[in-house]
């Protein structure tokens, strides 16, 4: 059988190598290679989806399409990749967002080669993080993504980029090193010394106090990455300074490393300890969701506002995972996890669209201060209506992508820990802040300064179209993703 997971995983890296070999290629050609490579990667991801997350003869337990090669047999590390219903939707999301980012960035003329190479390396790292089934491999991809994002922000960001990039790198490295500790703990705790994540999931190697310590280390890592209040301070700084493409990938893909890790590592490898600590995680999730919403309300910079709504949306996912850890009823657990995974996908699509739109606005106006605008809906109707649609999706309007996800999370919360459903207040606040933003930027008296602002061009429509399409499709018919997720979540046993 064709090793389609590995092919998809290393295709972007291959593209990067091709570009590096053509040192003097023109910018257009470089961008073309980037777009073609990421399009092929998306095809690979779709192929993986067609093959499905259940291997013939299995019942949805474990992983499908596993590919394995010896790497460091002396210490039990191997190259192992595969997918299940939790990781495959994220791989599809990653491949789609990268393709659109390449299309959007095809106008970049500042060192285009380095830009495309970094983005392609980042794509391999992102897909690798979601498909790795070996803890060392996971960690390697996890860290490589940090390095490439650091150079992305430092090289192509806005005014204060150096400081923001350093803060991002050091902060998230501080965040990810406890994971290394946890990985070593699980490795040394197991009967057979291996880094095979499947073995750890099948038979959690630690219990009692040791498991709790490992869990705390992992929670720290993923809380920084997600990010959960009070570990979120790197996020606004990084987003504001990052180029639009960087923001889309950071919010759309890299934040999911945190919540994906929360499920894959914390929930699946230390389930008992997570159940004990579940209420604490739940409280953190509730606070993060509410804090993110309130903080977003206070912003005047459109990009910061969207960055803070990410804290809010990711908070719901943490709530969902915590509920899944707390509950003993497999049905509630499946609902909570289905909602969480779908929320990751929805957030990637919606926030991706919003960051693209802010980037497009900034390209035109060189500012993101909301009070500088006004009445843009008349001047640039396409951009305006796209923003309105994405904003409505982001505030959880039924019929758009976030609704089915958040609905399931709240449903599970209500059945397991009813008090925690106060988190629903977050939706009210987000609704308020988006309406405020829309009225300030797109409604009201139009500002003379922007009379000549051009509307979306072909490249920008091509970037946004697929995102808006999927936002609607996921809102109306989420089942084609949910079925895939559900096959795995219903089979989970703790």
């Amino acid at each position, binding site marked *: 059988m064709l090793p389609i997971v590995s092919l998809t995983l290393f295709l972007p890296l291959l593209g990067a190598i091709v570009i590096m070999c053509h040192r003097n290629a023109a910018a257009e050609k470089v961008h073309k290679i980037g777009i073609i490579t990421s399009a092929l990667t998306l095809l690979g991801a779709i192929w993986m989806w067609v093959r499905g997350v259940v291997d013939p003869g299995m019942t949805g337990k474990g992983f499908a399409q596993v590919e394995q090669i*010896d790497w*460091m*047999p*002396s*210490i039990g590390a191997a190259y192992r990749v595969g997918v299940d219903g939790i990781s495959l939707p994220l791989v599809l999301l990653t491949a789609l967002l990268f393709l659109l980012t390449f299309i959007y960035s095809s106008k970049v003329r500042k060192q285009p080669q380095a830009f495309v190479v970094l983005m392609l390396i980042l794509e391999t790292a992102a897909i690798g993080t979601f498909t790795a089934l070996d803890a060392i491999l996971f960690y390697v991809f996890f860290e490589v993504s940090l*390095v490439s994002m650091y150079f992305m922000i430092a090289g192509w960001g806005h005014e204060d980029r150096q400081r923001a990039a350093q803060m991002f790198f050091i902060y998230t490295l501080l965040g990810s090193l406890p994971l290394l*500790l946890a990985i070593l*703990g699980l490795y040394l705790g197991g009967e057979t010394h291996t880094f095979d994540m499947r073995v750890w999931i099948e038979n959690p190697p630690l219990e009692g106090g040791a498991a709790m310590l490992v869990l705390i280390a992992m929670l720290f890592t993923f809380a920084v990455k997600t990010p959960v209040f009070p570990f979120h301070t790197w996020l606004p700084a990084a987003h504001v300074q990052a180029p639009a493409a960087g923001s889309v990938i950071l919010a759309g893909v890299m934040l999911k490393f945190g919540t994906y890790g929360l499920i894959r590592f914390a929930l699946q490898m230390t389930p008992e300890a997570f159940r004990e600590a579940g209420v604490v995680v739940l409280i953190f999730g509730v606070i993060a969701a509410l804090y993110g919403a309130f903080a977003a309300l206070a912003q005047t910079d459109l990009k910061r506002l969207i960055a803070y709504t990410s804290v809010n949306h990711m908070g719901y996912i943490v709530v969902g995972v915590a509920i899944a850890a707390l509950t003993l009823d497999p049905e509630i657990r499946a609902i909570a996890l289905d909602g969480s995974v779908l929320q990751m996908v929805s957030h990637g699509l919606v926030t991706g669209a919003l960051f693209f739109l802010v980037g497009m606005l900034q390209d035109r106006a060189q500012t993101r201060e909301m009070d500088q605008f006004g009445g843009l809906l008349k001047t640039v109707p396409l951009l305006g209506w796209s923003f309105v649609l994405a904003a409505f999706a982001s505030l959880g309007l039924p019929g758009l992508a976030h609704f089915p996800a958040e609905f399931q999370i709240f449903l599970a919360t209500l059945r397991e820990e009813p008090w925690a459903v106060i988190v629903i207040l977050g939706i009210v606040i987000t609704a308020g802040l988006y309406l405020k933003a829309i009225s300030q930027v797109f409604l009201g008296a139009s500002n003379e300064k922007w009379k000549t602002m051009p509307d979306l061009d072909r490249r920008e429509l091509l970037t946004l179209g697929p995102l808006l399409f999927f936002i609607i499709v996921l809102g109306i018919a989420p089942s084609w993703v949910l079925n895939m997720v559900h096959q795995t979540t219903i089979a989970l046993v703790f």
Partner: protein
Amino acid sequence: MANDLALMLPEIIVLLTAVAVLVAEMLRQPRIAFFVSIAGLALATMLTLPLLGEQATAFSDTFRIDTLSIWAKLILLPATILSLLLVRAELGGSAREGTAYVLIIMITLASLIMAGAGDTMLLVLGILLAGLGSFALVAYPRTDAATEAAMKYFVFASVTAGVMIFGLTYWFGGTGSTLLSELVILEKSPALAAIGFIAVVIGLGYKAALVPFHFWAPDAYEGAPVSIAAYLSVIPKVGAIFALAQVVRDLPVESAWQWIIAVVAVLSMTYGYLAALGQQNVVRLLAYSSVAQAGYFLLGVIAVGSSPLAFESLIVFSAAYAAMNLGAFAIIMQVGRTLEAFKNVGRQFPMIGVAMVVFLLSLAGIPPLAGFVGKFLLFGAAMEAGFTWLVVIAIINSVLSLAVYLRIVVPMYQPSENEAITTDIVTIPLVRQVWFAGLLLTVFIGLAAQFLLGSIS
């Protein structure tokens, strides 16, 4: 006897090489001296290969041919060759070029002796031999800075060696022998074991530049030619660390040695990086970074006897450290000694930029580079030995280290205020090849550590 000689053949070849180079230098033939050095060291490396897997001792147990000492040869001899290329590039054509080669080969020999020491006297011999060569090398340029650095180095060495020999008399008194393998007797007298061990840590800690015995290192590296600093930051350090591992192998685990090592490790890692944060001179910055890296090595030493990963981690990290540190110093030779000189280098010379970034990220322990695999194994070894708290401190220091190394990365990609001013980088022959080799090795060891791991066990 004949068998002993056969087992020590690589060391003997190194010694003969030194003698031959000395003769060539006396005949004022620096070119020949250089080629003889390279050929001799390469030959010694080849002759080490058949010894792989051997577990023996030579000359009535005083010298060990074991995993550590064999890998010390396989790592340090090629590393010395790379250093010699750098030295040739920097000092080639100067009046006493050949003497530098002789001294370097002698220090390498001393480091190999330390790495295989089975006897306290051999340990002392190794330290003194390495010391004598190092003073002369540091003083090579005959500038005020170099002379001062060499003087500090010399005084410091004399004191630490004196203290070490004094402390070793306690071990001799306790065991009635100078052999390390007799140290197990000290199980019933932990105080005696501890006193002797502190003395050994002082002696070897000075060679490996561990805190608080590191004071000489920044001055010596800064005063010496860059290529000599590169050499001194790698070869004697690894030799001393391996010697420490040889010593603790035979110490009773219950004695306090693990705690002494742990304290020194914490001090070295933390102080090294904190001090590096304030440096403006890149050589001094890397000097302090090498102090901190020595602290990381100790995580492997601490696990000797209680974790099978101990030797593997020490060896892999040594190879990684040699590749990335020599590479970083080679880049400094090409670019310059100040942070100022690194401004905009990454934009003007993409390859140099990429190479330096790889070396620095590897030093910080970012995957998938060599430094990561080495540190990962070290952490695993220390955790298995029950020193999880030490690993936590090491991990916190890794974050600090990133801040240190980014201090070099950031200016490399900062557009200089005046774009018209472009740094001139003279391409020095040989230096380019050295950092390129370092780059390949840093990436290769990172991705294919199994290549090393498989042949170690």
